[in-house]
């Protein structure tokens, strides 16, 4: 087996997310029907996206396994590969290998309330789980769902089309906030950790799932503790520099754990036992 | 007093007085006839300092790493030349770096010794006057140090003593023609030279020990590490490896102080000193420019003279 060989896929649709277009969502379809049928993943896993001749980048699968026939990736323009991806057009080819890593503990979360806390592009991995939980075939197995999501400015919010859909749902509570508003903005202004304190979810029978910039995570964790959440009620997903995605290239470890295999999803309980090297 | 005793005393005093926070020198290493850099912060640590023919790293590399501390650098002519270049390139100013000049009569070449011992690795070794004495389980050799010196030591040049804050003794490097090695290389026929270059470069594993040991390779991001875009491939492709070495040579044109640290650092014996010498001689003969010697000059490649004949453009 050559675990480095990607499956070929075609870009079906590209959705610009942010006003500056530094985040775009790519909807991709595997070229091979057999792969399309067999590729299965769980919320929280990632894949190595590649452009031949350019390179690879690990990207969370932001679509939910309940969405069939295609995969979605929300990509922020950062370096070589992600910039080249941003230049591509529908119909272009790319390579995908994966899915890699562990996943959100969505089975263990059944019967519980879930609070999603996302910042910026950090909503991408959460979205997979959100849409999984909100899918009609799964929704009844989870209690209350609330989502706190923030970005620097209204233009930096991602998945706006979907935020609207979540907003309209009766079974979901959505709090969208921005650090700084603009003329058109009538919503909430404030940092995510502060909004978390305002919303003040009860820790009883609740799990929180959070992802965002390090500084946000830091204060979110502090505030969750203030609200009485125990470390094992807090789930997060990490980013490390990766190459192989399969525990061989030696790049992504935190202590003895390889984030590409043992992660990227960890509970805060686990993180507290790991060296703070991320 | 012996040089080592003088050195220890001087270093201890500088640290005790608070003149510097750190003394960069050498101490006895863990392998026979080797030393290792010592970063001494207390008088007690400074008591381990040594300066002799087994000191073979260019200590000046550490100046670009300990940027915020006031440092005393134990300096032989190699380090002194580097300091001159550092001043010129604004890497170290005399008010942050003090040099403690130690005398040097040439470095022991580990490679020459290994050749001389035809593969036997000494289990113990010491210097005694002009003798290198080394031994294994059932053998002992007493060899004259002067037969075992580093190639860069022949014709080594000393910058003016005013560069030193304190000179503990006079350096007497072995006489010789610095360019002899280059001349030997240039006497070969073209194809032979190319073949020799290929043979050397083929061995390179791109570990970058040469670059990391070189005091003049201090770029925060080396061209060879650039990935946006990639300047030079990182595989074992021969032409990429050549590009790495040739570009490195070019970046050191008129800057290489010919300390030989890069050659000694290489774990697989790649020796491209002649490339650096070639550009060094060019700088000297065409522009009267001698890296590490003339503190007043501006860097060669940053100098423009209206009366430059610019023969190469015409």
């Amino acid at each position: 087996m050559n675990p480095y060989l990607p499956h070929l896929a075609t870009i079906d649709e590209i959705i610009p997310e942010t006003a500056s277009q530094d985040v775009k969502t790519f909807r991709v379809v595997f070229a091979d029907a057999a792969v399309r049928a067999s590729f299965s993943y769980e919320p929280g896993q990632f894949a190595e996206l590649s452009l031949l001749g350019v390179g690879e980048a690990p990207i969370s699968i932001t679509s939910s396994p309940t969405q069939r026939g295609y995969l979605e990736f929300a990509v922020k323009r950062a370096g070589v590969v992600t910039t080249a991806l941003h230049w591509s057009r529908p119909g272009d080819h790319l390579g995908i290998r994966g899915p890699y890593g562990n996943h959100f503990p969505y089975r263990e979360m059944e019967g519980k309330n879930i609070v999603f806390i996302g910042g910026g592009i950090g909503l991408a991995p959460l979205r997979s789980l959100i849409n999984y939980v909100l899918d009609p075939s799964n929704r009844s197995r989870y209690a209350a769902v609330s989502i706190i999501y923030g970005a620097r400015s209204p233009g930096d919010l991602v998945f706006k089309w979907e935020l609207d859909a979540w907003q309209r749902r009766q079974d979901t509570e959505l709090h969208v906030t921005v650090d700084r508003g603009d003329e058109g903005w009538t919503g909430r202004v404030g940092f995510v950790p502060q909004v978390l304190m305002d919303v003040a979810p009860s820790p009883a029978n609740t799990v929180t799932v959070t992802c965002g910039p390090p500084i946000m995570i830091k204060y979110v964790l502090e505030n969750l503790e203030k609200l009485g959440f125990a470390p094992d009620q807090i789930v997060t997903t990490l980013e490390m520099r990766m190459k192989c995605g399969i525990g061989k290239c030696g790049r992504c470890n935190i202590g003895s754990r390889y984030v590409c295999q043992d992660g990227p999803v960890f509970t805060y309980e686990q993180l507290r036992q790991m060296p703070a090297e991320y | 007093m012996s040089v080592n005793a003088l050195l220890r005393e001087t270093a201890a005093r500088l640290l005790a007085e608070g003149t510097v926070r750190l003394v960069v020198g050498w101490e006895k290493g863990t392998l026979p006839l080797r030393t290792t850099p010592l970063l001494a912060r207390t008088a007690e640590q400074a008591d381990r300092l040594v300066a002799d023919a087994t000191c073979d790293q260019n200590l000046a590399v550490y100046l670009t790493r300990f940027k915020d501390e006031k440092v005393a650098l134990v300096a032989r002519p190699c380090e002194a030349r580097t300091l001159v270049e550092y001043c010129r390139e604004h890497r170290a100013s005399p008010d942050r770096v003090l040099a403690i000049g130690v005398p040097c009569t040439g470095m022991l070449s580990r490679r020459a010794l290994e050749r001389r011992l035809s593969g036997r690795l000494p289990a113990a070794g010491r210097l005694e006057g002009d003798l290198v004495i080394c031994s294994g389980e059932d053998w002992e050799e007493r060899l004259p140090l002067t037969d075992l010196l580093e190639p860069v030591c022949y014709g080594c040049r000393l910058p003016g003593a005013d560069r030193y804050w304190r000179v503990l003794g006079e350096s007497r490097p072995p006489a010789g023609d610095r360019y002899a090695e280059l001349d030997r290389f240039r006497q070969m026929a073209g194809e032979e030279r190319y073949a020799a270059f290929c043979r050397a470069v083929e061995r390179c594993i791109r570990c970058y020990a040469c670059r990391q040991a070189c005091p003049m390779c201090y770029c925060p991001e080396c061209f060879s590490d650039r990935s946006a875009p990639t300047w030079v491939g990182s595989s074992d492709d021969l032409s990429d490896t050549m590009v790495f070495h040739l570009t490195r040579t070019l970046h050191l044109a008129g800057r290489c102080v010919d300390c030989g640290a890069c050659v000694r650092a290489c774990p697989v014996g790649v020796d491209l000193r002649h490339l650096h010498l070639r550009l060094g001689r060019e700088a000297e003969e065409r522009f009267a420019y001698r890296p590490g010697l003339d503190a007043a000059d501006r860097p060669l490649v940053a100098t423009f003279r209206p009366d430059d004949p610019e023969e190469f453009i015409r």
Partner: protein
Amino acid sequence: MRRGEAAVAGVILEHSELNRILAHVAGQARLWVATGEGEEAAFLPYRPGIPLRRGPGPTRRTAKEIFFPRTEALFTFHEADGKPRLEPAKVDDGPLVVFGLRPCDARALCLLDPVFEDPLWPDRLYGGRRARAILVGMACSQPSRACFCTSVGGDPAGEEGLDVILVALDDAYLARATTDRGAEWLEGLGFSPAPPEAEAAAARVAETARRALAAVPADGLKERLDGRFEHPVWDRLHERCLGCAACTYLCPTCHCFDIVDEGGPGEGVRLRNWDSCMFALFTLHASGHNPRMTGKERMRQRIMHKFNYYPERQGRPACVGCGRCVEICPVNLDLRQVIAELEGVEA
């Protein structure tokens, strides 16, 4: 695959026979031999007359390069009719013989195996070469001054990973198969059985080598390092380090690599090249954030990986005590000394 009951006992291989044997083996398998001395010692493909290595200790370059080369194509790609096509690198699983590696190098391969051949994502490029490889080792009669294999679970006459082990006696080698595969191979070469004196002589050679080895306090190091991530010992250990990759590229157990594309979108290759945790850029994110910002974190990673993280996952250290990193570090930053320093580490 350990030696079965019916394995052959030791046989005698005359020095004068060696070249004939190697030529014969080279006719049946890809044959790599340890050749060269000093900093040029390495494994090269056999050719008639190639000088076999004599020197003490291990070769400068490791046997891992045969199985995990510095650069290796993962696949090539080209465009045809506007569509990309991928051509996976050919798995090279033909017969392969490595002659003259030291016991430490063979053990090191056993430490790489679980990384490349883990059941979830077996890497056939590595695994293919390993699959049919016969490792013919040469016991150390004279360790190098930097060797410390016995302190990390090895032995100058260790058999782990080897299929056949040779011990140099005065005028011949004693060859012993240590696996069924080795036995079969050795049998095919037809040697005369060794007299009992030869076995005794070989035992003496090994014993002499063992006595020549220095001890390094690596026992219990895993446990001592547990929870010592934030210990002040790391603050100074790395200071002399230049941040090159000499110690990791020439370490037989280091396996970090990078994946890069070469060529254009129309045609090219995806390669894996060695990489090193000692390089500053190794963990640098595109955002500029770097979890291992300074030499301190990088040195800690190297040491912890070998003596704490790897043991945590695989039950033993990722160091076979070959002493290469000790010999080649340009600033003589000696791993043995680092280990000794860590011995005194208290909570």
